[in-house]
């Protein structure tokens, strides 16, 4: 098969994986090697695909020839698709060729289960060794650990990669059982635990010896599929929180399920991917990581799913009138962050700018505060930013109108769908 065909098949099979960042590893240039990862701190987008997603890495499968039969997956054994695999040399050359031309920041290597988890992992190790060794590649590598692979092999993989990840995909054991019969929660969590301790150990060693082997220096991430099975947003967000806490994950990605197969257990083929729901989960994830929110503050038993019409932060604010209005000239950083329309950057700017004197509504706009949202929740030296005090319903309606205008067309369609339902 021609390389162009292989690339088409193996990129197509990998495209549903949302994790495509290159953040967290800093490694400068090395004499005689190709590339560095120093721009990867913030993650570097090399292009955006037609769906608007950032493309950082050459994201491909090593092989799509799977022995497993996960029901939601295009590569499952029972599906009738063309099968192929890269040779280690083909993939190494492709990576180098793309990297030198500044198309990519590195390689994202995943694979279907070719024969067995161990055999697949061995092949991945061979590919990455060739790329790091003979082809002297010093750029970013993100490798997928295959659930069920033996710990020694996962360890070797982690020495070659900057980031290792295991996709949980289905957010509960029950869904796993019904939709991914060859996988178990244990087979997924075991490598995650191994990676967590491997990374910590390697860091501790590095403090002692500079030449200690580096195990996945950029940590691990995972992906959850949203909308293939019946879990609530609350269930997913609680899982996320424990993954950040217990497993020290760097990122959790969410992937709106795109129906690829007709199956009684799955949403029908004409179901639109729940993009708006995915968007809300990413917003909430952001609030957990940078805004000091806890999952239980955002959702609870009474409200297990996000309101599609408003972002999670506005929702929280509307449910907590006792917290507002916040006085910009006195509030601390954590409090400012809770105000809709105030972000990490503008909150920090407020702290600096108010040292020279009290701030007014006009200043806030220049400091980057989105006053359209923030006006209802702030006072400047005791004065409300909007002179008239609106009712709860009024504020809600205004915020929803702003939100509606900000959403992309596809998500807007989904919103009008909600409107009709109720």
């Amino acid at each position, binding site marked *: 098969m021609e390389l*162009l065909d292989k690339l088409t098949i193996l990129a197509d099979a990998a495209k549903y994986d949302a994790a495509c960042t290159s953040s967290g590893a800093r490694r400068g240039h090395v004499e005689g090697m190709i590339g560095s990862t120093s*721009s990867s701190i913030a993650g570097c987008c090399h292009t955006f695909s037609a769906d608007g997603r950032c493309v950082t890495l050459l994201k491909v499968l090593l092989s799509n020839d799977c022995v497993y039969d996960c029901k939601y997956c295009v590569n499952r054994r029972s599906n009738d698709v063309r099968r192929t695999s890269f040779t280690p040399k083909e993939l190494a050359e492709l990576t180098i060729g793309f990297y030198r031309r500044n198309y990519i920041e590195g390689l994202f290597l995943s694979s279907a289960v070719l024969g067995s988890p161990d055999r697949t992992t061995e092949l991945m190790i061979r590919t990455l060794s060739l790329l790091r060794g003979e082809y002297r590649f010093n750029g970013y590598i993100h490798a997928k650990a295959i659930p069920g692979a033996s710990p020694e092999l996962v360890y070797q993989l982690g020495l070659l990669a900057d980031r290792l990840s295991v996709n949980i995909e289905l957010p509960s054991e029950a869904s796993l059982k019904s939709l991914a019969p060859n996988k178990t929660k244990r087979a997924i969590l075991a490598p995650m635990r191994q990676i967590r301790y491997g990374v910590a150990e390697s860091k501790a060693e590095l403090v002692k010896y500079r030449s200690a082997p580096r195990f996945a220096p950029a940590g691990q991430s995972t992906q959850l599929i949203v909308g293939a099975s019946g879990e609530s947003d609350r269930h997913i967000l609680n899982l996320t929180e424990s993954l950040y806490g217990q497993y020290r994950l760097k990122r959790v990605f969410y992937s709106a399920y795109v129906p690829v197969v007709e199956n009684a257990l799955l949403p029908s083929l004409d179901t639109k991917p729940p993009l708006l729901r995915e968007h809300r989960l990413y917003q909430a994830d952001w609030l957990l990581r940078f805004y000091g929110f806890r999952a239980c503050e955002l959702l609870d038993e009474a409200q297990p799913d996000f309101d599609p019409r408003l972002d999670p932060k506005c929702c929280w604010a509307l449910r907590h009138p006792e917290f507002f209005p916040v006085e910009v000239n006195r509030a601390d950083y954590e409090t400012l962050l809770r105000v809709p329309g105030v972000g990490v950057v503008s909150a920090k700017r407020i702290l600096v700018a108010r040292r020279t004197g009290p701030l007014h509504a006009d200043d806030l706009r220049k400091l980057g505060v989105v006053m359209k949202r923030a006006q209802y929740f702030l006072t400047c030296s005791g004065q409300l930013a909007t002179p008239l005090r609106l009712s709860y319903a009024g504020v809600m309606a205004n915020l929803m109108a702003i939100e509606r205008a900000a959403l992309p067309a596809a998500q807007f369609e989904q919103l009008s769908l909600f409107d009709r339902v109720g």
Partner: protein
Amino acid sequence: MAWREIIYQYDGSFDGLLSCIYESYTQKERPTAIVCDGDAEPCFFEVRTVATVRAHAERVSRSLRRLSPDVIPLLRRVHLTCLPNKEMAIYRFVAKLYREGPRYLTRLSDDAYQPLLRAVHQLSTEVEHLRGFLRFSVFDGMLGAEIEPKNRVLPLLRGHFCDRCYNETFFIYDRTHREALLYANGVSRIVPLESFEIAAPDAEEADYRRLWKRFYDTIAIPERENPKRRMSNMPKRYWGTMTEFQEESAEAPPAAEEARRFRGSGGRLGRGGGRLDHAATV
């Protein structure tokens, strides 16, 4: 300060601009405008050419550093932006800073300060974009790229690409500002280069472009298509120099000819030892 209608003309360098500020304070006059050599339009005002004097620039620079170590780096960046009348914007900012002292630096929303911050923010965004969106082609083992930025980004892209392409030989041509960043063997230079035409791809280069285009087209999920989001993440003005948006050329004439023409024009990228030598450097 006396109000005389006077226009300063300078050589466009940052030190030149600082020399203008020095001139203004020693002559006790406030310029109406500060323009680059050759940009002054005939008018009734007096036009004075202010020479770039290293010692004068250093005096101004030292006085500003005493107020805060962040000022000079900020102003250097502003000077690279496409802010209209950036020289006078810098002048007004400096005048206010001298008058009010370091406290002025916290007044982020002041009219003489905020536009500078905004311009620098846009500059940083463009630099960040181009780190990713810039596309090299391989000619004869050497990397070459063209960009069309709004701001003068080459000085800020320099560190990144010299690190990333440490063991390569490369050039980046800025069409807007007609200058090129050249790099070989650990040495880099930014040189003015009036015109430049990039070589046509050879067979291997054409193959890689085709592979990349195919990857780009394949990686999108059709059910999630979202032109608005793509456009806001990657404005159209970058597309002109990105491989994935170019029509494939039917034929692929040899690249070497054009690449060599580059070596013979602006700067020479010597083959033996990859030596760089140019008259003007930035």
